[in-house]
């Protein structure tokens, strides 16, 4: 358990670091963004009913909660705040060009 928690913590710190983009060049930022988007979509498939999208298999997804708890709250914030997501997208395009 402790090991899993540590791995998670590392993972999350990693995500956070990516978010700050402190050490990434611009191309890496786009890749990072895509990774985030894919993961956000995945979270939607896993925990969609959290935000009102029915998921017939949500029962089996419960066991992932302890493993993804740290990702959950920021994800929910991102997914629920459309403006934020749009802004993020816009920023991404600015970045690119």
């Amino acid at each position, binding site marked *: *358990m*402790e090991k*899993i*928690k540590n*791995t*998670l913590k*590392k*993972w999350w710190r*990693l995500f956070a*670091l*990516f978010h700050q983009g402190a*050490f*990434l060049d611009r191309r*890496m930022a786009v*890749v*990072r963004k*895509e*990774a*985030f988007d*894919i*993961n956000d*979509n*995945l979270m939607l*498939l*896993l*925990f969609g*009913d*959290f935000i009102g999208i*029915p*998921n*017939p*298999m*949500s*029962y*089996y*997804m*419960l*066991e*992932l*909660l*302890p*493993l*993804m*708890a*740290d990702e*959950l*709250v920021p994800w*929910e914030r991102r997914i629920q705040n459309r403006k934020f997501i749009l802004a993020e997208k816009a920023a991404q395009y600015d970045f690119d060009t």
Partner: protein
Amino acid sequence: MKRFTFFGGKGGTGKTSCAASCSLSMAARGVRTLVVSTDPAHSLSDAFNTPIGNRMVLLERNLWGLEIDAEAEAKKYTDSIMEKMLHLVSATIVDEIRRQIEIAYMSPGSEEAAVFDKFIELMESAGKDYDAIVFDTAPTGHTLRLLTLPGILGVWIEHLIEKRQKARKLMEVAARYDRELAEQLKEDPVIEALSARRDKFELARKILTDSETTVFHFVLNPEKLSILETDRAVGMLGKYGIPVGGMVVNKVIPKGAGPFLDKKRLSQEKYLCEIRERFASGPVVELPMLEDDVQGMEQLRIISGLMGAVC
């Protein structure tokens, strides 16, 4: 004799009576047998005239009974998840999780999923405390959903795993210049958990589609609706590769039962012919309508004596 024997069919045709009788004759032959009800509306206790519940009970020499309690199983599952949550620090997160668990509890697939988990667990432990399991199933629709779950979910979980792996691959690309970070990316408990699930579904699918270990018998009555429903179900099992065994035609009215019943018997005969034609690929067993309900060992033994061709 197969390791896993299912009795299924339309509501009220005699699935429970047949499963109970079959388990009794297996046990009598010295096979350590477990008879399990996956029907949320259990009636195994009535058939054996003994209380059975979510704990295995000894019914006879070599024979144990169990009625799966979906709610109790779901509770065990969610409790174990909550326990893991306690190691996490943030109270808001724990609250979110609790909310999520409550939503999932009420979602339509939960009961089936809970039954299914127990069902896999029982099949996995076959060969240890018991050699064979006889399943008394719920009426057709519920059971088909239950048995086809691993095939459907397997594909879905595979998709989830791919998505997570793809996200991680991209992260690795982004972390290319940082060896330490790349190292940290190696393990992912989420992928491990999803893979464990997938493997469980795959195991269940393997067992259910293996004609060496598994057989699904239908119990029907000599009447139109029960034939039609069985026909559809046979097609469905075929599609998922679950081996169909024989047809047990229950509640056949015996000859010379009086003028009223003789008439009824004539109509039954027509349907019996139809059953023999339609389901010609396996054995067809006829069981007589008894004067009393099938309840208690004595009645069950009468039935089991007649089921030789399928049990």
